[in-house]
């Protein structure tokens, strides 16, 4: 019996070493490439919502993290990528969440810039994650419908806020036939994030870059009143 225990244990152990070693080797071999791929994907999305001629910094490597912001609809840590041109703030790409989707939360990222009169221009919006009903609510997904592109180049003006809504609520955005809740949620989320940016623009750009940290510190924002 002792022999059985010893030999089985040793053999299994040897195999464990070999197989884990193989994995380790592969991991080291691919880690760099994987990292690049992930960066590239993020870059792709950011490029889509923030025209690259507007800024000259590396968007992916310049961000702050905020959390627990009612305006951004989530308690999770959400990143804000900062775009600068000649070190001057240009705009941000904000990860945000629409908590009131028909089937749960919708995660999206919004590219925002400000114009001279401090109105917020929406450069583009992309959906990162959603669980909306296929065939109805999932038209917010670019793969299904180009609806999300209708946000591009929209401006949020303080006095015309109420037009930033779905048509059923008297706004300018189409809802889909048979589904109002989803687009409404998305429109509202975009609107909130724009207003958020408008409010905290200075603080966001004042904060230090935390993107390259392993565990980025969460930026605490102060309201104007304080």
């Amino acid at each position, binding site marked *: 019996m002792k022999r059985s225990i010893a030999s089985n244990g040793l053999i*299994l152990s040897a*195999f464990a070493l070999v197989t884990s070693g193989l*994995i380790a080797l*592969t*991991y080291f071999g691919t880690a760099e*490439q*994987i990292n690049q*791929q992930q960066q590239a994907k993020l870059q792709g999305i950011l490029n889509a919502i923030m025209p690259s001629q507007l800024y000259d910094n590396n968007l992916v490597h310049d961000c702050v993290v905020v959390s627990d912001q009612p305006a951004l609809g989530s308690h999770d840590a959400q990143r804000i990528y900062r775009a600068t041109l000649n070190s001057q703030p240009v705009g941000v790409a904000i990860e945000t969440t629409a908590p009131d989707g028909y089937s749960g939360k919708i995660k999206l990222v919004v590219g925002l810039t400000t114009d001279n009169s401090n109105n917020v221009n929406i450069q583009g919006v992309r959906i990162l994650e959603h669980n909306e009903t*296929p*065939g109805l609510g999932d038209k917010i997904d670019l793969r299904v419908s180009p609806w999300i592109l209708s946000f591009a180049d929209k401006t949020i003006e303080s006095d015309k806020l109420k037009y930033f809504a779905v048509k059923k609520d008297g706004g300018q955005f189409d809802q889909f036939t048979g589904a109002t809740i989803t687009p409404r949620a998305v429109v509202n989320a975009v609107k909130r994030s724009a207003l958020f940016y408008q409010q905290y623009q200075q603080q966001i750009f004042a904060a230090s870059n935390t993107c390259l940290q392993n565990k980025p510190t969460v930026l605490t924002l102060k309201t104007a009143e304080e």
Partner: protein
Amino acid sequence: MHELKQLSWQGLWKNNPALVQLLGLCPLLATTATLINGLGLGLATTMVLIGSNTAVSAIRRWVPNEIRIPIFVMIIAAFVTVVQLLMNAYTFTLYQSLGIFIPLIVTNCAIIGRAEAYASKNPVGLAAYDGLMMGLGFTLVLMTLGGMREILGYGTLFSGANLLFGDWASQLEIRVFTTDSPFLVAILPPGAFLGMGLLIALKNLGDNKMEAVFAAKPKPKNVQRARVTAET
């Protein structure tokens, strides 16, 4: 040669892991929304199958019977992880769309099934070939199912080929028809079940038809009746 032919026949048709053994259904049903997804997962599975079959066959002499399953599992897990890392590195977008199902290859019973049933009893070359054929058989089913579902659900074929083959492949996409109300159930999991069931039915139908054709000339077999007792 005969052995190889036999292996091909077994893997591709007769003992197809997906249609006959019904193994690996979880990734099969979940990832076959499009043809390219099916192809991607199929290729990944094939790679793992070849690798694990080869490895298992190579080490089969040194594996005691009692711990063979853990060893096989470790080998398979290692190969899956390696494939996962490689795909993550080199076919990133496909990896993104296949998502969780790559690690799930570990639990694909087709792989451990082949390791246990074939690779652990046969030489390396044959085992690798068996892995290739089983993998191809699996891939073919994934592609067929994916194609069926893609056409019904999206009206397209080969959409997303660029994920697998690079940008040039985007022109491979064929739009079969355009509709405002696609047959959504096809790309949802229930559609996978229905499609799978129909595929199995078709396969069995084909088998029956073939059997009927080949049974037309049964070769007369002369059986010598054994005498239990001495005949006087």
